[in-house]
């Protein structure tokens, strides 16, 4: 029981102190799970991180569940996952409760208009980083263009896009016989 509580609290701290999730979490995880608690080694952490990015779901909760599972099985995975989401739930609920009272004010609307432009720039920057890892050759470039066209022009559902393209990847890689 004690270890479950420790997992919950450690991941509560990680969730509450990292901005942005994904890669931002790595240094916090190192400090809490590797250095302070000794639950896993640094190499394991990097392995877990790689798995977390390749499995469905939010990277942060995947990583939390993996470490939790290693420490205390299924109950550990649950404790860690609940810990990592709790700060978000509290903080975002408070903000969401208040923001709608302010959005009618002119000054807030102007501020939000500026922020919208910034969000566009941030996403484009994330895409630029992602591009190098995902579009690696001519075939992946075709996959990219086909998916984009299908989503933009015929409003293909994102679920179908993900399923079909995973299948396409398997067809190309496995049927082609190239490793």
């Amino acid at each position, binding site marked *: 029981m004690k270890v479950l509580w420790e997992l919950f609290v450690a991941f509560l701290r990680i969730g509450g102190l990292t*901005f942005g999730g994904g890669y931002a979490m790595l240094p916090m995880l190192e400090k809490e799970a590797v250095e302070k608690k000794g639950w896993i080694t640094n190499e394991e952490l990097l392995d877990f991180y790689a798995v977390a990015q390749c499995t469905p779901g*939010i990277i942060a909760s995947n990583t939390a569940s993996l470490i939790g599972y290693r420490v205390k099985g299924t109950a550990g995975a649950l404790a860690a996952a609940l810990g990592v*989401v709790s*700060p978000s739930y509290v903080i975002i609920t408070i903000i969401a409760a208040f923001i709608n009272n302010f959005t009618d004010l002119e000054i807030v609307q102007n501020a939000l208009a500026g922020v919208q432009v910034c969000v566009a720039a941030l996403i484009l920057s994330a895409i630029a980083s992602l591009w190098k890892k995902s579009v690696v050759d001519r075939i992946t470039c075709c*996959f990219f263009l086909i998916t984009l066209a299908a989503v933009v022009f015929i409003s293909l559902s994102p*679920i179908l896009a993900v399923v079909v393209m995973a299948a396409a990847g*398997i067809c190309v890689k496995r049927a082609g016989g190239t490793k």
Partner: protein
Amino acid sequence: MIYLELIREFLKIGLFAIGGGLASLPFLYDISARTGWYSAEDIINMIAISESTPGPIGINMATYVGYLTGGLLGGMVATLAVIAPSVVIIILIARILNKFMENEWVKAAFYGLRPAVAALIVSAFLEVVKVALFNTDLYKETHIFRDLLDWKGIILFTILYYLIRKGKKHPIVYIASSAVIGILLKMA
């Protein structure tokens, strides 16, 4: 029943959004288009809030959408639903972790998945651009091409993009400065 619908939609995001935070964006636009629970502008506010507060973006977005649609309980069920598939999947594969990562089928699937995810995020980016850099409402009234583009926004966008790629500061820095610039230039 709004809670069941929230659970269904966020289970789907948890199951199919692969690769973290921004990968859930196309799903959020898809939900918005189908259900009308929130607007395209709400999504952008959501992104800004998520980037400026602690916690993983994907989870922040689930809480925010859940709260907007179903209050306190809505936020809670959406948050739990979005992590449920990942917890279950991890528990299932934790034992065969190394085999899973080295499996040729898994690798092949990701060869196709990664560009698809990139394309999905680009499609979400286009939705954000529509709201942030275009004045579609004004254009519908005047039909003057010059009115379609939000010039202040486009200039700010170009400068911000350059600074973000060069500076690598925390997103909150850029978001806060943009809010101030928005007020000073009366961008709304």
